[in-house]
């Protein structure tokens, strides 16, 4: 006759009690609306809709709500990530565990590069007098290709190839008028990290390598950056890649800040009307999303004026995703004014803005190769 042992019965009682307890706790505990750790809005309690009862749509939403607000969610996520790592898993939640311990987001090859190409071509057609440069940024997966887990099914250099292909079609569409920034810089690995170990962005060091490449693509002399201009402002940055694992045993990153004493800045946020004298937002350093320190978060249009630079040096418009945020500080000494657009939120079109501002002689379009299919702003470049 089958039976259960005393120890088992005891544990089963404990499990039953835990099931009831977590159910009650869920009902009693206050609910957050936003998860800092995961950097996303948590599901809200679904609004009652009778028609959604059919097919379990409504109850499906309740299940999502339950999972998002489950007591100890972060701890549960840590447990399963640690178990995966112990089990020898080298890819967790679309993240590669690289051989040096860094976390690398997995991205799919862009499927609709023509979206970006069309936008850039139309933009160039609208601004026949302006110097336009296009920079596509590879991700850590490309830069640290040699550190990817053994046997990971990735074609070598696919990002470089994809970028070259897009550059080729842009050159065709604009008769070579748009300058393209060669991503070869990413293969010159330096000792210092050029990408974060816990986030998908590049570090200021990676941004500097790309900045140098942009300088040479646009015929500027290469600049050496004074190491003394770099200071660590936070050493507890855990980025969005880390959040997919939520494993506290993985060490955090350092946030470096670049500062040039010669700057004399007026930084205007057109959406809030706020005016400051720094391209950085100190208050982000005490939050989870510390990368938002650069350019103080996301804004449709940010105007950085450096009064230390003579007006004749003109202005540049930068259309970028978040990768641009940590590179732009290196550009501050080259222009009197930098107009920084995030076309996800800037809806009026950039080309007409450039036409209306005669001081803008140059434009840089900067996107990560990972965002080409998904970035909602790409359609709004024009």
């Amino acid at each position, binding site marked *: 006759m*089958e*039976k*259960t*042992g*005393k*120890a*088992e*019965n*005891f*544990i*089963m009682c*404990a*499990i*039953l009690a835990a*099931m*009831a307890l*977590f*159910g009650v706790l*869920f009902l009693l505990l206050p609910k957050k609306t936003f998860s800092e750790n*995961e*950097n*996303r809005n948590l599901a809200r309690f679904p609004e009652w809709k009778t028609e959604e*009862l*059919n*097919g*379990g749509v409504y*109850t499906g939403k*309740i*299940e*999502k709500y*339950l*999972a*998002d607000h*489950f007591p100890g*969610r972060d701890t*549960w*996520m840590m*447990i*399963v*990530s640690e*178990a995966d790592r112990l*089990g*020898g*898993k*080298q*890819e967790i*939640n679309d993240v590669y565990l690289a051989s040096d311990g860094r976390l690398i987001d997995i991205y799919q090859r862009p499927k609709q590069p023509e979206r970006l190409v069309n936008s850039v071509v139309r933009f160039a057609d609208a601004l026949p007098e302006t110097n336009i440069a296009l920079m596509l940024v590879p991700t850590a997966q490309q830069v640290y290709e040699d550190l990817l*887990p*053994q*046997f*990971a*099914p990735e074609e070598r250099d696919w990002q470089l190839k994809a970028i070259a292909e897009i550059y080729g079609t842009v050159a065709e569409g604009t008769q070579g008028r748009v300058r393209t920034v060669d991503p070869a810089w990413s293969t010159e690995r330096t000792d210092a990290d050029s990408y974060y170990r816990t986030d998908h962005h590049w570090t200021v060091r990676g941004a500097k390598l790309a900045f140098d490449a942009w300088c040479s693509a646009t015929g500027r002399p290469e600049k050496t950056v004074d190491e003394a201009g770099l200071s660590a402002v936070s050493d507890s940055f855990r980025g*969005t890649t880390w959040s*997919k694992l939520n494993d506290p045993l993985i060490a955090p990153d350092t946030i470096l800040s670049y500062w040039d004493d010669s700057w004399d800045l007026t930084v205007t946020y057109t959406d809030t009307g706020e005016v400051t004298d720094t391209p950085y937002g100190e208050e982000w350093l005490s939050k989870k999303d510390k990368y938002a320190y650069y350019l103080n978060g996301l804004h449709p249009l940010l105007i950085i004026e450096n009064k230390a630079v003579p007006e004749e040096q003109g202005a540049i418009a930068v259309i970028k995703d978040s990768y641009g945020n940590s590179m732009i500080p290196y550009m501050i000494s080259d222009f009197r004014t930098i107009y920084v657009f995030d076309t*996800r*939120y800037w809806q009026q079109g950039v080309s007409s803005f450039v036409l209306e501002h005669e001081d803008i002689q140059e434009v840089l379009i900067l996107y990560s190769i990972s*965002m080409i299919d*998904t*970035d*909602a702003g790409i359609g709004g470049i024009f």
Partner: protein
Amino acid sequence: MVFSGLPFLFFFLPAFLLLYTIVRGRAKNIVLLLFSLFFYAWGEPLYIILMLVTTLVDYTAGRLMGRLDDKASEADEGSLKRKRRLILFCAVLVDLGLLGFFKYADMAVRAVNLLTGFFSSERVPFDLPGIALPIGISFYTFQSMSYTIDRYRGKVPVQKNYADYLTYVSMFPQLIAGPIVRYADVQRELKERHAGKEAFFIGFRRFLVGLFRKVLIANQMGALWDEIRTAEQISIPAAWLGLAAFTLQIYYDFSAYSDMAIGLGRMMGFHFLENFRYPLVADSVTEFWRRWHISLATWFRDYVYIPLGGNRKGLPRQVWNMFIVFFLTGLWHGAFPNYILWGLYQWFFLMLEKFFLLDKMKQWPKWCRHVYVLLQALPGFGLFYFEDLSAYGAYILKLFGAGAGSSLFTTDILWYAGNYLPQLLIACACAYPLVPWLKTKIAASQERTQRTISIICAMGLLLFFTLSVASLVRDTYNPFLYFRF
């Protein structure tokens, strides 16, 4: 609602167990019924009506037959038989009519469109009715029909209490994914059952083990299968690994559901019959079908194969009867041609074995027979997966290194297998009857050893429960970091 979800584990089950334990006697069935209806309504409230109709028809048929039997002395035997047959016919017609309409209407229209397409190129195809499949309809219809047929055969007494009858059909442990429990098997326990502490713990342990098998093995095998299936390039070994992963997924998914159902039933004092007996260790397809989804196979045996004459009417008739049974088995699984093909694929191998292979196989070494069964099962389950037959064809080509997306031999299998190594090893090992073997060893050991083993098992339960809940919480994590505004 599903067993392996947070709402069931943390709200439904504790609340149900609490209420069910508090109330006494007949009220237990009422609690069970109300919770079962809620359980069903969670996924599909409207279709409850459908279940009520089906059960009401079968319940009424059972009662009508009862009334006829009471008057049996007055009527002559012939007319009694005719009347009972008429009742059976009507009830089965309604049952199958509802099942047919709600599950197969789309398929029928597609078939008509396809056929008329042969005769005229300018035809306007009929619109698909687009009816959503009512959850569990195939399971509960078969359950309810078993009652009427058994009533007709005089094998079960009449059930006069509709609430009890509805409780039998809608009982949440086996409502939406089996096993197909027959009325004859639970009719006594429906009225009176004993569930002591012992049975409660045995049942709960079975439930937990089912939960682990579902969440920690089946879901992981499913993730592996998805990765391989959607990869742009796969090698021959990886393609086979993919099918193996899917086979393990479907076995663990399905049998774990049965585990949880049987366990929950046991906690309440029901004894549902086993539904899977290590099918993957079979050494012939014939044996595989004695071990796989037993409640369905025996249902078709008792209610289709034997009434058709089984093996008593000569060999050609038997082959035909088997054909019908496996055609229906395929069709039962889903309203797409691939399921029917899957059923006929099984039939073909059963016939092959019957006429020729089984005798020859006796001379093969055991491992050869086993490999043969696995090689038969893998492409078969592939057919089960792909509702789109051209996608299935493309995948089958990859198994032999042909077609687009195949890269013959590369190291990719090391990546896929390496990422799921612990789960793969456990899944393969536990597909063999290791646990029953260990149990007999343990039962024969000394009491002190048994106590130590009980402690190890207890730790295992706690560990796997924690991991299961963690997996359920995390795997809803779908970050759209750039779309949160």
